[in-house]
């Protein structure tokens, strides 16, 4: 009897060990990332975790450029982005029978990740309390706008804009796509164009990021189509797909960074058509006209023949996102 109990216990321990091994994510060095800490419980905590204000002192120009871009307000946007976060809940999750969302109080991080995968990827490092706070803040902002309460609307906008795609998202969190081959991004390291020491109390090291000048860095968010890794796939961006499957086959070889950062001279102020420089560079329009008399059997009709040639010089279809 005792022997049977011992075997049973050993079996249980083995099964527990296997289950634990299966539950632990693979990957050596995952525990050295910024994400490897208890989940953030508030917007303020999450913003503090990805606080890049210490970069400004030495990288003022890059910061000022970035501040003009939509990356600096990635979940607020022009206001439309924040509104769409909410629409995705009201017209999406609340209408879907198996989403688990009947009201705003049911919204969890996973319900926002359809948007946040790109607009705020670090949200995956937050608790559902943060998802709740985001939704509540968007509601507060919209209510305040309706009531023309500018102070409250402004405060909510500021809170939402405190979460964004900043230095640490591109130069740390998302700087390495192939983590098993190159290692996980370390919490004390800034990934850029060179390696060495870094004059910062928290980020003391520089490492050369293998993809910092490559399109794949941007392709993580400016994507390929439906995100099939999600329970309910969403499709916001298809631009990297267009780059891979339309631009490159046509002989294109420039990277996103070459056009949007270097040739445009916009640096970290990455823009699209709203920038005059980008719009002019992206599309050429050539028009030829001539006036002729056209005639059918009985009538003569003077007309202008107009031939329009539009050439897309961009590295992706226009429009795309």
């Amino acid at each position, binding site marked *: 009897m005792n022997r049977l109990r011992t075997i049973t216990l050993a079996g249980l321990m083995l099964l527990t060990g296997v289950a634990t091994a299966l539950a632990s994510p693979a990957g050596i060095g995952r525990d050295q990332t910024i994400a490897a800490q208890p989940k953030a419980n508030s917007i303020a905590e999450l913003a503090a975790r990805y606080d890049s204000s210490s970069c400004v002192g030495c990288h003022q120009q890059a910061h000022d450029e970035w501040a003009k871009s939509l990356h600096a307000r990635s979940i607020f946007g022009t206001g439309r982005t924040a509104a769409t976060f909410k629409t995705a809940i009201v017209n999406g999750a609340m209408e879907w029978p198996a989403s688990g969302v009947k009201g705003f109080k049911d919204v969890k991080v996973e319900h926002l990740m359809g948007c946040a995968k790109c607009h705020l990827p670090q949200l995956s490092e937050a608790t559902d309390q943060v998802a709740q706070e985001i939704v509540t803040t968007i509601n507060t902002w919209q209510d305040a706008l309706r009531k023309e309460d500018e102070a409250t609307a402004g405060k909510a906008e500021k809170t939402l804009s405190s979460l964004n795609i900043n230095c640490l998202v591109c130069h740390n969190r998302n700087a390495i796509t192939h983590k098993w081959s190159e290692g996980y991004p370390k919490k004390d390291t800034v990934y850029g164009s060179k390696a060495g020491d870094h004059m910062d109390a928290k980020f003391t090291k520089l490492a050369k990021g293998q993809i910092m000048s490559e399109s794949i860095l941007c392709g993580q968010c400016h994507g390929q189509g439906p995100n099939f890794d999600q329970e309910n796939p969403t499709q916001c961006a298809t631009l990297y797909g267009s780059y891979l499957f339309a631009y490159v086959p046509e002989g294109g070889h420039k990277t996103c960074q070459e056009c949007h950062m270097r040739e445009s001279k916009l640096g970290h102020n990455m823009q699209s058509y709203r920038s005059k420089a980008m719009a002019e560079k992206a599309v050429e329009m050539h028009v030829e006209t001539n006036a002729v*008399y*056209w005639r059918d059997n009985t009538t003569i009709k003077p007309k202008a023949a107009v031939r329009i040639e539009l050439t897309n010089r961009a590295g992706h279809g226009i429009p795309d996102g």
Partner: protein
Amino acid sequence: MPIPQQMGRGDRMGRGPYEKSGMLEDTSLPPLRTVTTTHDIFFPVKVEEKDGKKISTITSDTLDLEVKLWYLPFGTMDDDPFLWKEFKKTVKISTTGK
């Protein structure tokens, strides 16, 4: 523009990203290619009947042409339209000959 397919099925366009998961058609300008369109714009004419025949006479020998390339991010001219390119020219047609 890429016309997204609602939930990746059927013939309906999806609107919000949460319901887009496919593509019904793509009318965007393809990268590194030239798209050419031709258009016939007729001069305004006055049509009169004379001796049982319809006679058309041009009301002006010039025509002001405007070609505008608009991007409509939200699908209509009512919502944040963006004028990308513009071309203007006055064309003239002869008034002699038959």
